[in-house]
């Protein structure tokens, strides 16, 4: 959303791909649902998810298919492919490791020593 610090949004942009992959790990989903899930947890606009999904689809880490919905036209569902799963696994480890390192630096400067990965909120 607007009003965020530039640094904040840069960091977010880099990691949102991974977040979308992680959401899809729980099961196939459609755009509106993913937009909601993402925007509820991270402070981003609902629209953000769509360019990411498009990029991921063209990378081949997610695939798409249409499925009928009870009300209204068919929904475009997104599915995490094998390649997506591999990417998620490797990048998740990398991110958690990186967070641990960053936290170690940040915490030392405050309390002087303890390290720990607080990747979750």
């Amino acid at each position: 959303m607007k009003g965020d610090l530039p640094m904040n949004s840069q960091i977010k942009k880099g990691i949102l791909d991974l977040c979308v992959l992680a959401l899809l790990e729980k099961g196939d989903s459609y755009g509106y649902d993913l937009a909601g899930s993402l925007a509820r947890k991270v402070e981003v606009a609902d629209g953000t998810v769509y360019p990411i999904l498009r990029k991921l689809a063209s990378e081949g880490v997610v695939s798409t298919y249409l499925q009928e919905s009870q009300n209204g036209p068919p929904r475009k569902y997104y599915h995490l492919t094998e390649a997506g799963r591999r990417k998620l696994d490797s990048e998740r480890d990398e991110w958690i490791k990186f967070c641990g390192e960053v936290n170690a630096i940040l915490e030392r400067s405050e309390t002087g020593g303890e390290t720990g990965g607080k990747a979750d909120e």
Partner: protein
Amino acid sequence: MNKTEYLKRLSDELGHMPYGDVKDIIQSIEEHFDEGLGEGRTEEEIAESLGDPKELAAEFKDGAKFTQIMKKRKRLKDYTGPDGRGRIFVVVFNLFVGIAMWIVLLCAIVAAFCFLAADCGLAGLIIASLIMGKITEFLVPFIFLALTLICIALFLIVLLILGIKYYAKGLKAYIKWNKHVWNYGLGEE
């Protein structure tokens, strides 16, 4: 901003993207609106939560750029050396079809040249004979024959210029294609 306005602004901002991509993007955002409306939200609410259409368009454009770069990188990364099948294809194709075809075309051009030379020679001979007054009988048919021969000559000259131009162009493209198949195999261009 309502749904129509939002979609219009988004598609304007997407600008130079290929038509198919714009259509695809607009469709997905339209779907988003419809889902939201189904939940009882208003068009204005949904537009607000989607974020600035200009920013959204910029993100789509960034994504497209990124994809192009990744595709190129992937091709370079996937390149594991020459593809054996591609090389066999190049050799076999050239042996039976490719080279023969280009030689036949070259022969056609040479033949057209010879024909042009003969045509010009004959036309010249008739015109010279006419001027020198050596032809006394069938004067009109001979003049027509000379004119016809000149017309054929002009036609052949045009044909040859075009023919040589496209021959050179085609040969260049053909060699490039061969190189590509030789190096990368018969995959996507």
